[in-house]
């Protein structure tokens, strides 16, 4: 999803990443007791909005991580949803209705209680077509969505028929069709609650949002400078450690320099500075695989690529690790169609992702060879990416004897709705990426390879794959994962795309802070867990 956006910035010290989820509300009490107090600063980009339903990029979701408590968080080992602001989520036997009970006694930062109505109103508002909220499409699985988004004219109703408030702390959600992964989606910010103050003046709310998370706004959003947060004293969940957090807004390289100069406590590290970070900041550098799959998409509408053995050969002929060691340092080679912090990922599942020049040659020979020139497409103005693509083309040339050509396309055209990706006019494989919205295997299968997938740009069509997805969508959450894995097996054989790598979520920090924890399943730092060293007598020991 935000895939492309994020892929754009590989090579900067910036990673645009995705998705949702929050922090310290779940469980409670499992934290080692740390000391509260102090202020720290963290790198961030400039969000488009600070209204959770109207923002779809990583700078916003990182801020929401502290400002809101999501309905569910994700388990640190299985990445399955666990209740956060929700108390319980129960699926009906027909799979269509979810009964959501929320924890009582929680309040927004202005003191207003968080009730079932806070959720239902927010969802209705975002799902209402004329409001033109970016995350509107997240509600399309709920019954009544079409009535709020007619193909023409003004909607006759402002409320989703599938939402019913049962009591202050309970509401039900009826879906149009069963969807086993619905609970995962609730970890996304589209489903956050909004207080009444929002509806009085959404624009003013955008400048100083009022959430229900461990941190509240400390003054207004200072555009392109900082988003200042302070601990919300009446938070009903596990409180955050630091008194104040400065989300500093940077563009480009300035963040890295500011970190080096000692003015920024925590920053993210991309390919261009990772080698330096490994040398100079190895003691605080944390490298973890993130929630993004980078891959080479394949134009299956081009007869050259319709034989699966050609695609298998192309994948087998790339030595991913070599390219990453030399150029794309912040990435790790892909070994499945989804990254590790996702429910359903299987290590080493992709047999054709292992570099094997001999097998590649044999596969290509079996397929009858490759005629003509292979054009490898990528977006322009990213020298790191260009070098990597040159290396890939060279490997195809050396290992398979294919004549290759590189084609850099301007970024505005590349990702445009009228560009070659969406109009299916790509002249050969192209660089692509997919960042999850929620850490489920389904999010890496159905949207990209399903017949009705929102990003099925390769034109992949496999009825058996689709029916397997259908089955999985109708199962219970736990049953569904192995079924999705069966679908994954089909594309692991078919190779409708060439998995390339996983973009790392890499952080470094200075001596001022400790206890940096990545939010399970999402590319976010858990802002509430960071401790400031020496603050009001805090012990420096990490929990």
């Amino acid at each position, binding site marked *: 999803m935000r895939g492309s*956006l994020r892929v754009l910035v590989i090579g900067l010290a910036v990673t645009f990443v995705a998705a949702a989820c929050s922090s310290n509300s779940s469980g409670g009490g499992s934290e080692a007791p740390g000391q509260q107090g102090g202020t720290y600063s963290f790198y961030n980009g400039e969000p488009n909005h600070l209204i959770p339903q109207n923002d779809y990029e990583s700078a916003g979701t990182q801020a929401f991580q502290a400002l809101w408590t999501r309905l569910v968080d994700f388990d640190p080992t299985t990445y399955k949803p666990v209740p956060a602001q929700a108390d319980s989520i129960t699926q009906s036997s027909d799979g269509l209705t979810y009964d959501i009970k929320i924890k009582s006694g929680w309040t927004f930062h202005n003191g207003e209680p968080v009730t079932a109505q806070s959720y239902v109103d927010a969802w209705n508002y975002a799902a209402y077509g004329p409001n033109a909220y*970016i995350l509107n*499409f997240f509600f399309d699985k709920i019954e009544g969505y079409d009535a*709020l988004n007619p193909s023409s004219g003004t909607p006759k109703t402002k409320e989703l028929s599938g939402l019913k408030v049962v009591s202050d702390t309970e509401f039900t959600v009826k879906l149009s069709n069963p969807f086993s992964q619905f609970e995962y989606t609730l970890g996304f910010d589209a489903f956050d609650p909004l207080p009444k103050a929002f509806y009085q003046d959404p624009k003013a709310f955008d400048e100083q949002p009022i959430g229900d998370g461990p941190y509240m706004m400390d003054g207004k959003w200072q555009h392109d*400078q900082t988003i200042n947060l302070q601990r919300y004293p009446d938070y009903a969940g596990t409180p955050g450690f630091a008194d104040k957090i400065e989300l500093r807004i940077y563009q480009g390289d*300035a963040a890295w320099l500011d970190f080096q100069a000692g003015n920024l406590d925590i920053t993210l590290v991309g390919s261009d500075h990772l080698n330096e970070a490994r040398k100079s900041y190895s003691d605080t550098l944390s490298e973890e695989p993130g929630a993004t799959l980078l891959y080479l998409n394949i134009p299956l509408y081009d007869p050259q690529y319709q034989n699966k053995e050609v695609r298998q050969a192309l994948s087998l002929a790339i030595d991913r690790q070599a390219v990453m060691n030399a150029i794309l340092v912040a990435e790790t080679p892909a070994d499945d169609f989804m990254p590790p912090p996702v429910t359903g990922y299987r290590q080493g599942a992709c047999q054709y992702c292992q570099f094997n020049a001999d097998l590649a040659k044999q596969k290509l020979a079996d397929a009858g060879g490759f005629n003509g020139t292979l054009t490898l497409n990528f977006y322009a103005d990213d020298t790191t990416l260009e070098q990597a693509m040159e290396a890939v083309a060279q490997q195809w040339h050396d290992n398979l004897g294919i004549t290759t050509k590189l084609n850099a396309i301007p970024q*505005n055209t590349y990702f445009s709705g009228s560009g070659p990706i969406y109009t299916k006019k790509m002249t050969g494989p192209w660089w692509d990426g997919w960042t999850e919205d929620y850490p489920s295997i389904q999010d890496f299968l159905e949207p990209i390879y399903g017949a009705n997938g929102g990003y099925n740009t390769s034109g992949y069509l496999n009825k058996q794959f689709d029916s397997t997805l259908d089955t999985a969508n109708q199962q219970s959450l736990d049953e569904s994962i192995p079924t999705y894995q069966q679908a994954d097996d089909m594309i692991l054989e078919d190779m409708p795309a060439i998995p390339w790598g996983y973009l790392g979520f890499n952080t470094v920090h200075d001596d001022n802070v400790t206890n940096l924890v990545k939010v399970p399943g999402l590319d976010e730092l858990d802002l509430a867990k960071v401790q400031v060293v020496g603050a009001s007598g805090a012990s420096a020991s990490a929990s």
Partner: protein
Amino acid sequence: MSKRYLIRRLLLVVPVLLGTILIVFALVFLTPGDPVARLAGNKPLAPSTYNEIRTQYHLGQPFVVQYLYYLDGLVHGDLGATFTGRDVSSIISERFPVTLKLTLGAFAIEVVFGLLLAVVAAVKRRTFLDSAILVFTLFMITVPILVLGFVLQYVFGVKLHWLPVAGIRDGAASYVLPSLTLGLGLAASLGRLARSNVLDNMQGEHIRAAIARGLPRRRVVGRHVLKNSLVPIVTILGLDFAYLMGGAVITETIFNLPGLGNALITGIKTQNGPMVVGLVTLSAIIFVFTNLFVDLLCARIDPRISYE
């Protein structure tokens, strides 16, 4: 200098602005790409959301109609909104002070250093000092702003910790390195130009007469030479000022200053048409008025200049 002249010049602003806006509008809105579709990365927006946003911004209308809508807004003091819903006027009013401070800093460096270098080099012409200044100014002119900026950041920020390297959190100190980055190159150019001007003037009969009269050298240079060299210098300074106020894209980006140049580059990258058009229009207005001011000033400095 008559009132009629002034009115004529002011009236000229209108076609200049209309033309500028038309050209920028065409460049921004006729280039391929779909900024609305990209609001959610490579995930397609809901059709209702997509259509609603396009309708709000008149994007489905022919180009000319969009242009007229924009002009209509402009007449009513509305610079439009970005595709993420922020008013362009509020972006400009937030960022204008940053660019103004940076401009004043760089401009001060240009004037002070530029004139100092020029006068010293001219007075001490063909000495070692003159040659040293020549080498220094040529060097400053050749060094790209990007390189100078990074070197200053690294030396004074990262290594010595004397000055901040990014952002505007530290008040005036935040503007020192960016102002130097911008101002030194301008000072060097001005120094070269002004030196030859000052030298030309020092050959004048009236100067020799003044020296012969026994006037102190400082007074000769200050009063007679420099004043007569001012017209070309003021003209160049005016152009430089207007250029600086347009927003120094590279400097603002490497120092993470939230100014107009920084906004322009973001606007271009994200194809945020309303933002780009608004910023370029503002820069055109500043250019036109600075030029007018310079012309008036020159007429005052040198009464021989007439604009009839």
